[in-house]
């Protein structure tokens, strides 16, 4: 039994059952991934729905990123479940009062939507490959074409209507899915650290910045790998979006924290003890300082100075990497932090994630790497760059 459990030390008084933290790094990865889905989809939609033509070079790439992350979203949850083989119980017999009960349906709906949108976006490519390729690949593309090889202007206009509709449905879909993840935490009255009406909003906006940052990093990386120059106007629009959404996220987070402190309900003493102690490095230094204020200052400087060329690319990409770190830390500080503050409001649990094991850092790292591997495959099957070149 001892080998199966990972009990944490504590200070003050915590309930005896609280020494084993129920939700671990896998549940940190879960909202992080759904956030990346929503953020990348936002970039795709800014082009697809709102006509941000500068984003054309990354629009389809962002859609693929969103799809790859979304396909991985159920994995950390399944790994975390005590009985993953019973996961479908929640869908077969959903307990409608539970915020979790809707997840299976919402995730399934959104995966279908993303797959459909991806199919419409890459249909001309699929048809072309189905006609050109032979062997297994040819068969694969022919199956993917679903027997439809009409790429006439009329058919394309019809596809565009579908794309527009799917992108429009996808916006509330993606953002709803992630806002709902925020609701799962925010609606729990048992934990003061989570129990906030602003939690869904904070989750949503931090999702948008993380997804935007991921698209920036992967786009620049892909340009380097493909040995093509980075489209600076596209990069700038993404940087502007990142800047705007970051400002908003920081403000909301600040308001949320200020409200918590100002309300000063029972347990605020131990929360302040937590904030001034264990939270200093993960929150103030990593999430707030290095991951938010610094990149915000860098992007502000770049915009203000009108920097261009390599300096702009390096500055924005570096900032985006830090933002990705900040949002990961935000998820960690919310999910793990909330459980480190005891329900007794008289003590703190000190959780140190194990490296190995099903709920260890290594497993979480592998889960985070899976969308990247998927993306490497999908980018080869459905090159998202061709339209930009055309």
């Amino acid at each position, binding site marked *: 039994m001892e080998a199966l459990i990972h009990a944490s030390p504590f200070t003050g008084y915590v309930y005896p059952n609280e020494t084993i933290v129920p939700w671990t790094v896998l549940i940190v990865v879960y909202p992080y991934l759904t956030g990346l889905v929503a953020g990348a989809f936002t970039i795709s939609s800014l082009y697809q729905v709102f006509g941000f033509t500068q984003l054309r070079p990354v629009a389809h790439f962002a859609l693929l990123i969103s799809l790859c992350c979304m396909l991985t979203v159920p994995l950390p949850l399944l790994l975390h479940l005590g009985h993953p083989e019973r996961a479908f119980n929640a869908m077969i*017999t959903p307990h409608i009062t539970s915020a979790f009960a809707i997840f299976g349906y919402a995730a399934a709906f959104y995966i279908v939507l993303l797959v459909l949108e991806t199919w419409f976006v890459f249909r001309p490519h699929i048809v072309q490959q189905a006609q050109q390729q032979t062997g297994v690949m040819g068969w694969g593309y022919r199956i993917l074409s679903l027997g439809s090889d009409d790429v006439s202007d009329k058919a394309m206009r019809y596809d565009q209507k579908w794309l527009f509709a799917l992108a429009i449905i996808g916006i509330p879909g993606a953002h709803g899915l992630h806002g709902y993840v925020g609701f*799962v935490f925010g609606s729990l009255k*048992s934990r003061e650290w989570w129990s906030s009406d602003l939690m869904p909003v904070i989750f949503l906006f931090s999702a948008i910045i993380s997804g935007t940052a991921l698209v920036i990093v992967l786009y620049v990386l892909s340009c380097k790998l493909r040995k093509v120059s980075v489209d600076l106007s596209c990069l700038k629009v993404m940087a502007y979006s990142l800047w705007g959404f970051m400002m908003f996220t920081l403000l909301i987070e600040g308001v949320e924290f200020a409200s918590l402190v100002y309300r000063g309900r029972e347990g605020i003493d131990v929360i302040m003890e937590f904030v001034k102690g264990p939270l200093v490095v993960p929150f103030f230094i990593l999430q707030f300082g290095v991951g938010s204020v610094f990149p915000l200052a860098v992007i502000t400087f770049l915009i203000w100075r009108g920097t261009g060329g390599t300096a702009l690319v390096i500055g924005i990409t570096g900032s985006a990497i830090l933002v990705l770190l900040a949002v990961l830390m935000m998820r960690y500080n919310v999910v793990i932090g909330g459980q480190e503050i005891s329900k007794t409001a008289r003590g703190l649990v000190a959780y140190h994630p194990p490296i190995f094991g099903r709920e260890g850092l290594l497993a979480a790292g592998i889960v985070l790497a899976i969308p990247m591997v998927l993306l490497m495959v999908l980018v080869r099957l459905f090159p998202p760059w061709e339209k930009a070149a055309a």
Partner: protein
Amino acid sequence: MDENERLEPHDKERRDFLSCLGSAIACGAAAVAANSVASPATAATPAAAAAAEPGIPGYDWSKHQWGFGVDAEKCIGCLRCVEACKKENNVALDPNHFRTWVERYVTLQGEDKARIDSQHDPVNIAASPKEGEYRFANRYKDANVEKAFFVPKLCNHCTNPACVQVCPTGATYKTEDGVVVIDHTYCIGCQYCVQACPYGARFFNEEKNVTDKCTWCYHRITKGLQPACVEVCPVGARVFGDRNDKQSPISQFIQNNRVRVLRPETGNAPNVFYVGTDKDVI
């Protein structure tokens, strides 16, 4: 033997549901009706719960309404209840899994807030004879103690249980006779309920990979016995009975004392009633 394994009213429901679903797939639209009729999601409602009564011979759960009382004035912190519970319910012996526990509140002279510990505190573990047997260390023997008392804790079997609300599958539910139980054969082990309980009453059972908690020894009370912790308490600090019976120990306890419940502000409406607690009790 764990009554969660025996008491499986949902099993029948699920079999019904699945067979309904099977025919529904064949019949098309009937599936929706089958789902809404047979889903355990509705088990929390009295009508559906009544239909799912477990087949315990000679027991009619509609005739009972169980309640629990704790007289903290009487508790001596001997922890027999904790040990008995672990043995009776096969709870892991380590100091991280408890269906019931006892808290010690000690206010020293000159201090405003009580110092709180329980049997899982490392100092108390060091003073305990072996794993599964617990003692409170005499850690305040040289201090000027102004006030000290013990408070036994357990699942509150709330009227509006937050744990039942958040369960995505309906594996945890409230029985007709007022007990919150978990169907260990249906729980997916997501631990959302562990998070939702404001009292820290739930834990994860690593042996079965499901969540676990106090059931008021449902396997005993449905046979006319007392819960194990009540049975072994040498001072009568724990009181249990049927609230439908006005002469039962719990009815008398509530009637004759000014009782309180823990954290009423959560809206959970607990069904464990306390006497002799203090402002510091959480």
